[in-house]
């Protein structure tokens, strides 16, 4: 499945966040903290869907973050 411009941008953004969060420990937690503070729920949901459809284009830490995000959303 081809990603549209918006989806490509989301992927780029989250991978960039994964590379840039300050600490190399708990990168997934820092990603979750960042996207829940600054992204809309729709953007988070779109990212989750991309993670399911094309997991290979997301950094490993992002997958861990999506799992955390899913857990926190389910618990909310």
């Amino acid at each position, binding site marked *: 499945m081809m990603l*549209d*411009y*918006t989806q490509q*941008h*989301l992927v780029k*953004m989250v991978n*960039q*966040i994964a*590379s*840039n969060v*300050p*600490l*190399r420990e708990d990168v997934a937690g820092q990603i979750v903290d*960042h996207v829940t*503070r*600054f*992204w*809309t*729920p*729709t*953007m988070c949901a779109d990212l989750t869907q991309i993670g399911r459809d094309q997991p290979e284009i997301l950094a490993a830490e992002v997958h861990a973050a999506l799992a955390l995000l899913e857990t926190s959303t389910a618990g909310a």
Partner: protein
Amino acid sequence: MNKPIEVDIADLDLGTPLRLSDSTVTVLIDGTPIAVPAGTSVMRAASLAGTQIPKLCATDSLDAFGSCRMCLVEIEGRKGTPASCTTPCEDGMSVKTQTPRLDKLRKGVMELYISDHPLDCLTCSANGDCELQDTAGAVGLRSVRYSPAGANHLDAGTDSSNPYFSFDASKCIVCSRCVRACSEVQGTFALTIAGRGFDSKVSPSEENAFLDSECVSCGACVQACPTATLQETRVIDLGVPTRKVKTTCAYCGVGCSFVAELRGDELVRMVPDKQGGANEGHSCVKGRFAWGYATHADRITQPMIRDSIDSEWRPVEWSEAIAFAADRFRAIQKQYGIDALGGITSSRCTNEEVYVVQKMVRAALGTNNVDTCARVCHSPTGYGLKQTFGTSAGTQDFASVQKSDVIMVIGANPTDAHPVFGSRMKRRLRQGAKLLVIDPRSIDLVRSPHVKATEHLQLQPGTNVAVLNALAHVIATEGWVDEAFVAERCDTASFAAWRRFIELPENSPESLAEVTGVSAETLRSAAAIYAQAGNSAIYYGLGVTEHSQGSTMVMAMANLAMATGNIGRDGVGVNPLRGQNNVQGACDMGSFPHEFSGYRHVSDDAARELFSALWGVGLRKDPGLRIPNMLDAAVSGQFRGIYIQGEDIAQSDPNSQHVEAALKAMDCVVVQDLFLNETSKYAHVFLPGTSFLEKDGTFTNAERRINRVRPVVPPASGLSEWQVTCALSAAMGYPMDYASASEIMDEIAALTPTFKGVSFELLDALGSVQWPCNEQAPEGTPIMHAQRFVRGQGQFVTTPYVPTDERSTRKFPLLLTTGRILSQYNVGAQTRRTANSVWHAEDILEIHESDAELRGVAQGDWVEVSSRAGSTRMRAHISDDIPAGVVYTTFHHPVSGTNVITTDNSDWATNCPEYKVTAVQIRPSASAAAPA
């Protein structure tokens, strides 16, 4: 003995500058005692005592010069008649300012001046506003014994080359006030006195015309001139103004205070306000002169609508335009959902105007999809300073720089982009402060008259964080950390983690020299200079923020300041030089999609309930879309309508093609602006905005100073912008019933802890205040984090350097970086509609000689600049201000469309575009036109 008297000195010219001293001396001026700081001149003491000593070469913005011999006085126990301007007061000194001997001397001197001055007072443009005329009257001159037939300067001629002022040499008394203003106040040293004796004359840059000289048209010389020699063209054409209104400039983040001087309802001139806290009587070419756009023929003053962007605009009444926009917005939300709409606030609008737009979006549209043009400039400042210090604001007032021993300028060009602060900075540098410049480009400060950078770290674009890490590494490993400050004021756990990180060998200057392009020796030298001075201050601009690691870099600077204890007092700090006049205010007012006013997250239940209760509406707790995400969603078809207040995103935002595609995809684009612009090509509703001369409200400048913006003339469209926003909000079903802008500020104060004490009444009484302004600081806070950080303990954040994805390649081997020039401003909507275009009629590409030669490009040639985003054409200017491998341009002109070539790379934390690094190729081009 008489009691010392108190005088309101606000509007007096006291003749010589204020002297600060811990001790005071008391002198008798014509028998009246006055206590003044030691070092104060007799002239100033006399003025404070209520006695104006005649003067011509003296004015309180300039150091005493003692040339005109008009201010002579007698001092008991001393021989002769010393000049009061150059004579300091001594305790117990008894001064006589009026005696028959002094009268005779002054008349004699004045007679000589007048003997070589045109006797055309009645028809002179300065009639009624001339110190020479006033002083001749004050000394009682009634006749002149010398014949005008002798040698004179009456035919010396007029230089009218400058579009804003003229120089009539026949009226010059060679008092040197203009020359001194150019050097002492502005720091340009463009003027000098050429010749000697009778041949002495004011000379711009070795006897050039003003326009051809190094003069930067700041107006300081015009302001200082005591005669009609240097006079605004508007005054010559229209006459001396008859009424005044104090207000605030609409250009950069310095936020200069001005006195608008009018005849009736016609603005004659803008004069910098001596009492203005930000500018203290100084100005630049934009604020002083480039306000003619406000009455430009291109102004749109009637609302317009159209069914589609292919249709012609149809001028309509306000009610029809508002109803049209509301109908479309309602239809969009009905079909696509609440979040299909959003808004953008403008940093060129007042706090009150911005506040009502974000309120309308959150309360009337029911979404948090509101963002501001600070997204594309200082959003990383908001993120970075909040993480480290606890709030998004510069730490100092502008005056603080006068106490700095070291000034580090990073990614900023103050003499062009923040010129009035640049002049203040240069003054301190001339006094001996050391200067460190971190910039790929050799900005003016690196080497200009009487100013030279101690170190210029000419780094590769995109390597800011690497440079700061190297500096911090040296400071940490050399033992230059202020351990006591860190232990007392900072979070020690975060400091320990930061220290472990920064001391890693990979952060050493030796490791990073190749990456940054700055030698290890230079990095080590700069670190030593910054860390080992008494007071070191950082000033930065968009060369910091507009990078993929903009937020990281802001935190790196904060780390550096905390580690060395350079926070919380005069002369130090971390200071963003904000691009537009109200960037700080627009951010303060809750323009970001995740924050209410005062930087409180929308998920903060207590804050949200506070707003919800006062606004009487439920509010969302999830963040809204940022501008780039709005544009993405528009291209995807999910985001269908937008309200854009005073921002031309089609020209100012990166990757113009994507912005245009997004705008084109929307069903309703509402633009509120002064002129039809690139963005309005895609708009369905045009709502006329108000120029700063028509606004009533406040701006908050880069030093958190809240200044009043007062209406100088009525709104050309008949309505204030906040009234228009309120009308649209009401049409969307959420009325906002304010009777005045003052009422809006009252609501802001009620909801925003840092603004709690702010009101128009307070601002009118004090002139301005710097937030926080509340019970703890009823008159504001010039220096932040003095006792504790806003967040409590300062937070160190590790800052790993991550190279940008945007790298030079074989296809795009050069790195383009962008910036501003003095005479133009941002997308040029204002300045291009003034005579400022005489200095900068088009954007040009600066290219290093070797890169130009390699491509067969000669000076002034047209070149094609292409990136992976697009291509444009401009003329080349071969310059050694930039290193080989880097090219530079401005973005003031839509024709060149610089942002056609900038990419959609952005800061990882805030999505601030990476304007400062674009890989490009340059090729010779036959002309400005694109090939068919």
